[in-house]
């Protein structure tokens, strides 16, 4: 028996690989679960944006929050400069 014949036997042995019955199901479940999670996250984010833009109170609250964050940041910068 030469090296090529041995290699062929080795290859045949390797081809006798057993794959779990539910391999493709496991992969597909993982994919579908991931899709569901992603669409849920995207949906929630979209809903939040829609809510903010449709409600004047929510829009005002977001703007006030943004303004106070900006004022706080500016105040910190000014105080830091004054400390020098």
């Amino acid at each position, binding site marked *: 028996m030469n090296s090529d014949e*041995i290699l062929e036997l080795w290859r045949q042995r*390797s081809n006798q690989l057993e794959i*779990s019955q539910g391999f*493709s199901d496991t*992969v*597909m479940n993982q994919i579908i679960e991931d899709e569901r999670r992603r669409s849920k996250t995207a949906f929630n984010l979209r809903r939040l944006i829609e809510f903010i833009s449709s409600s004047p109170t929510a829009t005002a609250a977001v703007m006030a929050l943004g303004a106070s964050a900006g004022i706080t940041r500016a105040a910190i910068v000014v105080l830091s400069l004054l400390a020098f």
Partner: protein
Amino acid sequence: MTQDIEVISRVLQGDAESFRFLVERYERPIVRMIRNVTGDMEGYEDIAQDVFFAAYRKLSSFDPACSKFSTWLFTIARNKSINALKKRSRSMSELGEVTNGHNPGDELAREEFFARLDRALQGLPSGQRRAFVLAEFEKLPYAEIALIEGARTGTIKSRINRAKKKLRSVMEDFAGGVA
């Protein structure tokens, strides 16, 4: 090939279930390649599942003008195998452990011999091992292996030849016993 592209376009249009066709078509070569490259006899299916999952997530980046889908999938499998091996960092010094004296007619001895060949394969440098597995077990052309490995065809040929040379000493041990 054309069928793969049709399925991929369906998946990209939102029909995730169509991806099952690609999983079922390529599960065998991918699982086999991972098992042979990593030598991991327990976790190879988990790695293969990761490969298909990653392929699904990155499907929009697949460019049929650059490669076949199978080549692209083997590239992901190659990278996942390398990562799995890095995590495991096994000692690979069993190449020299081959001994004479078994009876090749004996099924048990034959199995032991193939187990030694498997160990010898795992003892090869990873680049040589991957090139050898893709060429000899998966029967991929050198040009395709070069694409998967991101190397020149000449480099791939040389890796395969070096791998064969090292494995030949193990094979000759068996061939000598049969002759």
